[in-house]
């Protein structure tokens, strides 16, 4: 009963409080509080945006920089070395554009083989074992030594190994010419040999003709020579021209 009476009194008092105690802050006070809240919101905004904005600006600058570099590179020209990873200079880069892809590959493989074999020959004085590959390398090496078109030379990046390669190729050519003479001495016989000897005699290259003849006789001791050649050079065993 007491509890009910207390609840009733409380409700009546609450109603009185609601009615009589209704006060509110003045407009000026509201304005001050709202202004303070606005200021706080404004102060926070830049700090919240900065990290996002900074990342966006950095990414944009990087993309624009790359785009500008790519735009300034003409389509025919290679991309600047700073943007391309370094690659070893290959001989096919110096090939004439008219050559087919397959022949370029063959020549490239031959050149590589010839270079390695030449190095081996320098160490080993035996010329016979490496005769065939060296002979194959000759035209390719000569082609490499041919002067290049100016535009092509301009477009080619400077390779630090070019001079070393050139000197190696020169050695191949010299060695190859020696091998060619020896081959001629061994292989030429009969009509071919006679013809060659006559040409050498006519050209007054007597020493060379003698050397060729000696080698031919060493290979074939029973070699028959025409009289005119015997007269010009003399029999090797006779010891007089």
């Amino acid at each position, binding site marked *: 009963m007491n509890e009910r009476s207390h609840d009733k*009194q*409380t409700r*009546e008092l*609450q109603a009185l409080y609601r009615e009589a105690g209704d006060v509110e*802050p*003045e407009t000026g006070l509201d304005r001050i509080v709202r202004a303070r*809240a606005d200021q706080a919101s404004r102060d926070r905004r830049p700090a*919240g945006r900065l990290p996002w904005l900074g990342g966006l600006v950095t990414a944009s600058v990087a993309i624009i920089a790359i785009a500008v570099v790519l735009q300034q590179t003409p389509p025919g020209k290679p991309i600047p070395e700073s943007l391309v990873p370094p690659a070893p200079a290959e001989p096919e880069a110096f090939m004439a554009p008219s050559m087919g892809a397959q022949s370029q590959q063959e020549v490239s493989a031959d050149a590589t083989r010839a270079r390695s074999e030449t190095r081996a020959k320098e160490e080993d004085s035996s010329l016979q074992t490496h005769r065939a590959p060296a002979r194959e390398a000759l035209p390719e090496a000569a082609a490499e030594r041919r002067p290049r078109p100016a535009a092509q030379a301009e477009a080619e990046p400077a390779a630090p190994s070019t001079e070393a390669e050139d000197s190696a190729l020169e050695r191949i050519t010299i060695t190859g010419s020696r091998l060619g003479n020896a081959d001629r001495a061994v292989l030429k016989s009969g009509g071919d040999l006679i013809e060659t000897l006559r040409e050498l005699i006519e050209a007054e290259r007597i020493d060379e003709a003698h050397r060729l003849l000696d080698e031919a006789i060493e290979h074939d001791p029973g070699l028959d020579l025409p009289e005119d050649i015997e007269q010009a050079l003399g029999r090797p065993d006779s010891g007089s021209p």
Partner: protein
Amino acid sequence: MTDPRTDDDLMLAFARGASDAFEVLYERYRKPLYRYLYHAVSDKAVADDLYQDVWSRIIDARERFRRGNGFKRWAFRIAHNRLVDHWRALGRQPGLDGDGLANLPGDARHTPDAAMERDQQAGQLRAALMQLPREQREAFLLQQEAGLSLADIAERGGVGRETVKSRLRYAVGKLRGILEPGPEAAGK
């Protein structure tokens, strides 16, 4: 149209920089907070200062607010703490010394009869509230304005639930005793 967001959602939005969320929240709590402070001190100038200070504290502490806090309880805790500071600074138990009635709005005497009667009732109520001990008045106002439960009020005051219940019972009984004889008796 009423904003469907909860108080906590609004406060969190405001903490992220949405000033419109604060506007909604402020509309919901401007009256309850002001009434709480005004009836606690019964002095308009002091209540205005306290009110402004409480909202400043709410704004400054917005980034520390967490969803589980409950905005109403959180805001009234700030107001309660500010009141305690005020009373400590005052150095004495506030009581009815006539200032409460003297601080009635200046134009109250020049309003029509109905309005005059209402103002008299309001003054009578404030006077009655100020006659209560501080703890009883605090408990009554927190229940009326913040709608806090007995447990919440007990936790705020650092006392037991039964203590708060007892304080509220005494407060209501005294207020009834003061107010029942009539407006004149309460004013005397």
